């Protein structure tokens, strides 16, 4: 058991000590949730910038962060639209990427008891980060971790999107290399997942590269996703 010297007047395993460690755990979960919220928030800056670089208005960039609120899907949509791809290809890619949130929700609904109405709200903040914090918190605090990270990321992500979008809308994005930063953002999202399935990553890249000259803009990414689906399902 963790004990801090000095102000700790109750020794042994009395009720106040239990309360204290419980409070410590709660604080630790909250600290982690907020830490992730700030870190991911800064990443919202690059989303806001990417969105206006791709030709979206500041309002559209903010609407994406407020309503879609799942980073990879948002980046995918503006990436496809920015390259001149069709809206249908952009939306389809975004939805394929967003499908993992459904799996997160399944896992979370077994972990955190919640009323039906609360679930409607929880759904919007069911993303990579809130799931990760909930899953790695001690069981009774899973809900605390989920809401702290989920709502925290929501606040910072949206503030940062606004800042990034306004900032990029007022500069020469090509000269500043902001379009090249979008590729780096995708690589940053891919990086921690590379170890899970390196061959899938190579396969996806090859299919996309082969499809670029053949298919309309935006479609190569979809084709890459569809090409690996049979491999995934056969596992």
């Amino acid at each position: 058991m963790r004990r801090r010297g000095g102000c700790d007047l109750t020794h042994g395993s009395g009720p106040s000590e239990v309360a204290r460690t419980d409070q410590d755990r709660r604080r630790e979960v909250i600290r982690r949730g907020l830490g992730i919220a700030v870190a991911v928030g800064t990443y919202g800056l690059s989303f806001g910038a990417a969105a206006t670089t791709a030709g979206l208005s500041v309002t559209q960039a903010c609407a994406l962060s407020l309503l879609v609120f799942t980073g990879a899907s948002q980046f995918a949509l503006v990436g496809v639209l920015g390259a001149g791809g069709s809206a249908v290809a952009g939306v389809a890619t975004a939805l394929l990427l967003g499908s993992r949130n459904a799996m997160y929700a399944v896992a979370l609904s077994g972990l955190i008891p919640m009323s039906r109405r609360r679930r409607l709200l929880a759904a919007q903040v069911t993303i990579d980060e809130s799931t990760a914090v909930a899953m790695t918190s001690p069981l009774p605090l899973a809900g605390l971790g989920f809401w702290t990270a989920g709502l925290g990321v929501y606040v910072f992500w949206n503030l940062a999107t606004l800042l990034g979008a306004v900032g990029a809308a007022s500069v020469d994005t090509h000269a500043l290399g902001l379009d090249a930063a979008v590729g780096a953002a995708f690589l940053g999202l891919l990086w921690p997942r590379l170890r899970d399935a390196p061959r899938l990553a190579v396969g996806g890249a090859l299919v996309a590269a082969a499809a670029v000259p053949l298919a309309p803009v935006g479609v190569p990414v979809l084709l890459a996703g569809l090409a690996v689906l049979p491999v995934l399902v056969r596992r």
Partner: protein
Amino acid sequence: MIWAAVLATAAGCYLLKVTGWFVPASVLERPRVRAASALLPVALLSALVVVQVFADGRSLVVDARAAALVAAAVCLWRRLPFVVVVLVAAATAALLRAL
């Protein structure tokens, strides 16, 4: 058209999230479905990297964006924070274009 895409994506993504919260676990929690949704992003993101960096319309090109990608990879390998990765990539492309 952009607004239609924004709203369709918003509706679809929310629907995906909310489905998971209300559908009985047995429906979605099959190993194959689980593996597919966990690993699909790997293929999609790597395809997105390729298209974002090497595609110019319907042709493949190697330009300042490729150098930016290499710089980003080095940053990620050095475990630098996301913001640094993105900034270094942008700066690399900006520098090459200014030359």
